Structures are given as C-alpha cells and as structure tokens.
C-alpha cells in the first residue's frame, strides 16, 4: 500500500520567552499508509498535538522532512499550504470548534467554500453528509442547540466535506461520555473502511487507542 504521510526526524521547539524554550518534538519519525487508522498516544505534553498540527500543515517543523501524498511539505509556504489543507486534509478537533453563528448545515458548507465548491454543490453535499450522520433534522440548528455527540458528528461531516484523503482528529472523543465516544469511534472506523480514507487520531485515552489498527507512542517529544 502507498505511503501517504512520511515524516522523518521532525524537530520543533517553541520560544515562550527569552530563556524558556520548549522542545516539543525532538526528532520524531512517523509513517502512515493509505487507508491506515493510526492513533498517536502519549501523556499530555508529549508533543502529540504539535505533531498533528505539523502533519496538518498548520505548523511547520524546525527541521526534518515531511512528505504528504508525494508532496514535500516541510518547507511549504502558507500561501500553498492552505490549498493542500482545503483539498487533502480534514480536521476534527476536541472542542468540536463549530462556528457559533452558523447553523449545522452552514458550518459544513463553509469548508466547501474554502475547498472551492460552488454554492449548489456545497448545499447538496452538506445535506448528504448530515443525512449520513443521522442529523437531517438538526440541519438548521446552531451549535449551542446540539448535544456533544451531535456537534462532533457535524464536525466530522465538515471534515469530510472536501473529500479529503487524510483526516486528522485531535482528541475527537475528549469531551464526550464513554458511550458517545464509542459511537463516534465506530463512525470514524466505518468511514475508514467504506471510503478508504486515512485517519490519524491523537488521544490520551488507551481504550480509544486500542480500537485503532496502528498505535504510535510518543513520550517527551520522541518516539517510544
């Protein structure tokens, strides 16, 4: 199977003040094949979110190489990175991160706008996705009118909007109860199976991690 993400010796440090420099990643290797369902696990502060942000081109490594779908992304400038984010990568965040002023449908459609879809196409696809998530009747609800599980399903639909090959999820079950967590995980795996999309999930929950095909462990900014 084709390697879709390949990262070698990624290093990243943050300068918090003149004397306080945090080394978040101290040389991490990471590889994901197409259709993989990978969990990045480790204690908090181990650098797993930083790694996910770098994989999602939201941040750039200080050094090391990063190849995404055969494109060298380690030194990619922002004005090219946003296009790659829009087309190839979908994000799911811990706090759902829906835009509070927009309805469920509009939140999903927004991603389509940045992905360059036309309005009619956007609406049709967003409706389809909501239906798939079983949220057809919640279409015109604002985020504050949705339960945690519903909000996360809207966020997942949004991540799928531009048909990305890679979905990056940062603690997707972090704010959900265990029953809903399992439902969401099942849903992710279902999509992974049926649509052969690559999933990378950051979690500190071993129960969630155990359901994943592959586990990458980080500790103190390094592979374990």
């Amino acid at each position: 199977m084709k390697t879709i993400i390949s990262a070698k010796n990624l290093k990243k440090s943050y300068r918090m003040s003149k004397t306080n420099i945090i080394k978040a990643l101290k040389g991490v290797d990471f590889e994901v094949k197409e259709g993989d369902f990978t969990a990045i696990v480790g204690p908090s502060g181990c650098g797993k979110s930083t790694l996910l942000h770098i994989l999602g081109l939201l941040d750039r490594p200080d050094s090391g190489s990063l190849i995404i779908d055969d494109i060298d992304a380690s030194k990619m400038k922002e004005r090219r990175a946003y296009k790659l984010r829009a087309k190839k990568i979908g994000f799911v965040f811990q706090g759902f991160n829906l835009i509070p002023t927009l309805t469920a449908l509009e939140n999903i459609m927004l991603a389509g706008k940045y992905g360059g879809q036309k309005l009619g196409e956007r609406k049709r696809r967003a409706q389809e996705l909501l239906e798939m998530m079983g949220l057809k009747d919640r279409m015109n609800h604002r985020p504050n009118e949705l339960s945690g599980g519903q909000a996360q399903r809207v966020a997942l639909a949004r991540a799928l909007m531009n048909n990305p090959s890679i979905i990056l999820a940062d603690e997707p079950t972090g704010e959900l109860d265990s029953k809903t967590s399992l439902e969401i995980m099942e849903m992710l795996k279902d999509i992974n199976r049926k649509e052969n999309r690559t999933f990378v999930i950051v979690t500190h929950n071993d129960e969630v991690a155990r359901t994943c095909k592959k586990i990458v462990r980080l500790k103190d900014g390094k592979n374990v």
Partner: protein
Amino acid sequence: MLEIFRNMWRRKFRTFLTIMGIVVGIFAFTVMGSLALKLNKMIEGGKLYVTGQITIMPKGSAVEGMGGGGNSMLPVDTLDKIAQVDGVDKVGPMVSLSLEEPDPDNPVGGSFSFGPTPTIEASDLNSEYKNRNWQTIAMKEGRMIGKGDDNKVTIGINIATDKNLKVGDTIKIRGRDFEVLGIVDKTMTGPDSYVFMSIVPAREMLVESNPFLKSLKEQSDKAASYSDAALSAMPADIRKQIIDAKAFKIEDVNTMAGVSWKDGYNSEDVANRIKDQFKDKVSVLSPVKMGEEIDKATTIFNAIILGVALIALIVGGFSIINTMIMSISERTKEIGIKKALGASGRSIAWEYTLEAGTIGLLGGLIGMGLGVLVAVLINNRMASRGAEIFLIEPNFLIEVVIFSFVLGTLAGIIPAIRAARMRAVDAIREL
C-alpha cells in the same frame, strides 16, 4: 453576506455604537455638504452675472457689489463718458436698494439670514444695455418688465411665495403701488429675491430714504426757484453752494452701472481702459477678476465646511478600526478553524474588510437619511421666508454613501490584514 450581519449582531451594542460614530460623521457631511452645494449654486449664479458685465461702482461706496446706502453715486455725466471708451458697447445705469425701507434705529438689519435679502434691482428700461450672461431669465408666469412699465414690476419666486402674489396683483413697495407683471421661475440664486423695477421710481425711492440725497434734492429744488438776478446778489460762497445744488439731477442717482463690451473686444482690456481713464471716480470690477475673487471665496468656504465634516468622519473611521480589532481578537479561534478548513489569508482578510465596509455602509445610509431629513425639515421651515439653505442633490448623496462604504472598508484593512497574518496554529491553541 448573511454571516457578516450575524457577526455584527453578536455584539449588538458595540456594533450600534460603531455605526453611530459613522452616522454622526456622515450626518455632518450630508448637512454641511448640502449647505455648501446650495451656497455654491447661489454664488455660481452670481458669478455668471458678474462675469457677464464690467461692473462700475462709485469710488468709495460702502460695500462693493452691494451698492448699499452709500452716499456716492455715479453721475450720468461720468457714465456718458465711459460709454465713449474704446470697446465699450453700452452702459446701463442701475439702482439697487433693499425692498424694505431701512429701519433708522437699526440700519444694518437685525437678523442674520442665508440667501439674498429681498432687493429692488432697477435698471433703465429705455437703455439698450444687456448683461451678456443674463439676457434671458426663465419666467414662471407673465413677462419681464420692458419699456414703459414704470409702474409695474417683475418679481422673484421667493417674493411671490412670501407675499402670496400672482400676476396682476398689486404690490406695495415703500408706500407705492406696483402691478405684478411677471414672476421669475426659480433660479436658486439672487433673482429669487429680486423685484425688477424701472430705474425711475427706484431713484425716487432711494432719494426719499437717504437723508443726504434727500437734502441735496431739497436744496436743488430750492435753488431752482432762485432767479439769476437773485443769485448774483448773494455772497460768493453761498452762491457757489446754490449753483452746486442746482447741478444735482435725479438722473445722477445711480448706485452702480453695468458695462457691456463690443464683440471682438477683450473684456479685461476694456475694463483696464475704463480703470485708467476714470481711476479717481469709479471702481471697475472686471469679469475675470470678479470670477477669481468669487472662486477664491468659494474654495476657502468649501474647505472649511468640508474640513469640519471630514474630521467627524475620521473619528468614525478610527472607531471602526477599534471595533474590528476587538472583533478579531474575540474571534481568533474562529480564524484558526477557518484556516484549518483551508481558508486562505486573503479570504479571511476579505471577510473582515467586508464586515467593516458594511458597518460603514450602514452608518452612511442612516447618517445620510438623517441628514436629508434635517435638511428637508429646515428647508421647509425656511421656504416660507424665501431662504432655503440646503440643496439636496441625489448625486452628492450617492457619493456620500459610497464614500462611507469606502471609509469603512479602508478602516477594515489594517485589522483584516492582522487577522489574515495570524498563524493558524496560534489561533487554534486559543482553544
């Protein structure tokens, strides 16, 4: 677009205050601008008039251009001589005096008013002189006075409205009755408040109301009654006085005169020739010089009026910048999400710029509406007194609204660029 309004609605009170900042500025801009437009238009009409003739004033008249109340006159003798100057076509004697008799206790007039005060503009109906730019005045009703209409007048629209007069009615002016022969159509300029009259009754009225001229005339009438024999018996100094008094003729009562020039002659050359020859008797106002003077006054006036309004607007602009910077720091997280979803810096910048532009546009529409409302209300109140002070011009209003949108957009650019430059990961970390 809908999202912009929802975002603005999130902080209703703050948005309201910001819009009010623009409203105040645009309101001032609309009102001041309409005032400037009106005054410019009036001045423009006056400019057309003064540049259509060489204006002659007696040397030392109180207010140049107004010919008001001064004791200096333009004797017919001088005017006849001016008519002989090379290039002069015709000379038209004129008398200009206020419609109401001046109050002896308050000669300047107690109230400040916009627009011209009602004025009698009298010219010699037998003269062939005509102002080059004002030969035809559009009539609303009736016709302009002409030869033989010594007891008739043509009146401006404001006089007609004010005194509720129609063609054929009688108007009492300084104790005399005149028949209204015509009403001039609205010009937005001086003629709206004019009474056009023959110079014959106007001269008599001027003499009656001017103590100096009145005594001069009385002396003259008295002097005429002395026989030559009686005169020669008098002492030399008194005799001289009486002879001087006898020389006074009613035809000499001219407060100003218009001079037209022959075709093919340059108005400035003709004006200079008159100036050279009659330096110590008359002031000569050439068309070009008058035009320049008026332009200078207009420019300064406009700069002051619009400057005041612009300051108000700049303050409004800063309040937009402030509001947008606050909105953006509140929505940092959203900007991060949008970037994660694949929004380009440009599309983020565009959203915020448009939001600021919308604030500007709303403020502009409301401010312009209020400005027009106030201008119309004041105009309606003033109309009965013949002095509308605002000119409401659709083109200007459209420009005002476009301007407020552009102002808002410009004010939004700096905050929008800040939003666009925000690094996605920093914005996301705000979670």
